[in-house]
């Protein structure tokens, strides 16, 4: 059985870098139970929930712009919602959405990215090619599944697929059409329903099919 490089070891190794030559760093870690994670004191955490002590990506990026954040942990596995994951990655066999936050930290603000994988830490220097960042983040998410039940965000990863978003859009459109039909169900000939239905058709026509790009 192949031994997995534990996220706790990753945090310890990255924390050691703080005492070394690096002035700032963004560490990409999976979401695991706190007991398995280690001491995150002194790190600024980014996740989707804005928990106490944890900030949303937009908030951190604003603070990074003001230069008061040096050590950041990014929970890439938590950033899967359409508002958070806006970078479409096309692989040979599938596509998925990633958050742009790692790309921005690395490219715009010059943070080295230190990414946990099952085989160890992968370090990407500032201004790395986007393709390298994308590939390593995909590898990171793929390796997260090797953590089994310890990976707390395992069940949410389907939400970053174009197929899931396509279904969510269809559901939203059905909800809108049902809402109009419901509002005019006692007056089906009312001309007032048409502009609303036309708008829904317009929204539907504007949607992009990411899976067929």
């Amino acid at each position, binding site marked *: 059985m192949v031994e997995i490089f534990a996220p706790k070891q990753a945090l310890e190794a990255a924390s050691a870098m703080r005492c070394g030559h690096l002035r700032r760093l963004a560490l990409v870690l999976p979401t695991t139970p706190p007991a398995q994670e280690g001491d995150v004191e002194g790190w600024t955490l980014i996740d989707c929930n804005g928990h106490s002590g944890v900030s949303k990506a937009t908030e951190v990026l604003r603070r990074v712009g003001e230069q008061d954040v040096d050590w950041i942990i990014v929970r890439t596995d938590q950033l899967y919602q359409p508002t958070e994951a806006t970078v*479409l990655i096309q692989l040979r066999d599938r596509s998925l959405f990633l958050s742009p936050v790692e790309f921005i930290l690395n490219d715009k603000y010059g943070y080295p990215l230190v990414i946990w994988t099952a085989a160890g830490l992968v370090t990407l220097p500032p201004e790395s090619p986007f393709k390298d960042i994308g590939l390593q983040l995909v590898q990171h998410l793929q390796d997260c599944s090797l953590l089994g039940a310890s990976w707390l965000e395992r069940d949410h990863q389907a939400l970053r697929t174009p197929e899931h978003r396509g279904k969510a859009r269809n559901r939203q459109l059905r909800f*809108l059409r049902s*809402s109009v039909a419901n509002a005019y169900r006692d007056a*089906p000939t009312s001309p007032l329903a048409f502009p609303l239905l036309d708008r829904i058709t317009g929204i539907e026509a504007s949607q992009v099919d990411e899976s067929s790009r």
Partner: protein
Amino acid sequence: MSLLMRLAVALASPIKRIDRRSTVIERLLQLPLTPNDVHAVRQYGKGIRLGVYYHWYLEKFFVARSVRGVHRRKATALIDALDATDYGDIRQVVESATGVLIAIPHHAHYVLSMTALAARLGKFRKVHVFYGQPATHRNNAVFDRLHQVLFDHPESGVEVIHDNRQGLAKAIKGLKRGEIVLIMPDAFQDEDATMMVPFCGRLMNAMLGTAVLARKTGSWILPVVSTKKAGFGFITSFGTRIDHPIRQHPTLTPEQARIADYGVIRRVFAQFEDRMANELHYWQNVRGHLSFGPTAELPALADLPALLDAVSRSALFNPPGLVLDLR
């Protein structure tokens, strides 16, 4: 057989007092529940004990076992023994000048209600029992078996049709000739083809097919619900006739027709809700219906423009900020 069943079900009554999960019972009943399912069963209305749900599945299990492998006379006798329905209300169906769609949900002993109804009505005019083919709806195999036993002779006046193109064509033709179609509007194959209707505190996906058939054939709809008789057995409960508004508006555009169809389906489900709301655990779809999301309503007309604005601006409908081709 009926007596034995009654006895077995009565002897199992103490199960109703259980309110803890039992993997043994679930295995015996082939009813593997998820935590979401358990939550759904317990939360509805004032909540029911899990044991009541187990007991209901036990009763269904006994009924399914009893009808398996019996011959026509015995099956008819069994259904008659369990049936406590007052059939006075079917007079309007028998005497109808047009075709009639009898809409029945997957509630309580719906198989027995449909079968008993079809057998009675088939004596007066041709009846088509319309349901998903067992190849795609595994649970419907029991229909096929039962109908083969009961109706596989021309005098029965009952024919099974499945939800495919041929079945639909037969239903339309039959309704136009003034025949009867028994249909289950709470089932669908393709979620994208459904509309959402409020039902028992949630939104549910429903096909408009029953309303479309009524509109295209000039038929009317009779909502019917199978309910459980206290103790053991079933009562088929008849609702109120629903006429499609196409009669008042003979020239509707496709969009207007869809809105009118939707209104008809809402009325059908409103009648179902009246009968089912207090005993929703007898509904086959109860776990799926209640296990997801909080109570949801459709928005009021005044809120629709703002909702459309919000949706059109939402991230879900925005193109990706960046596309990286890593193929």
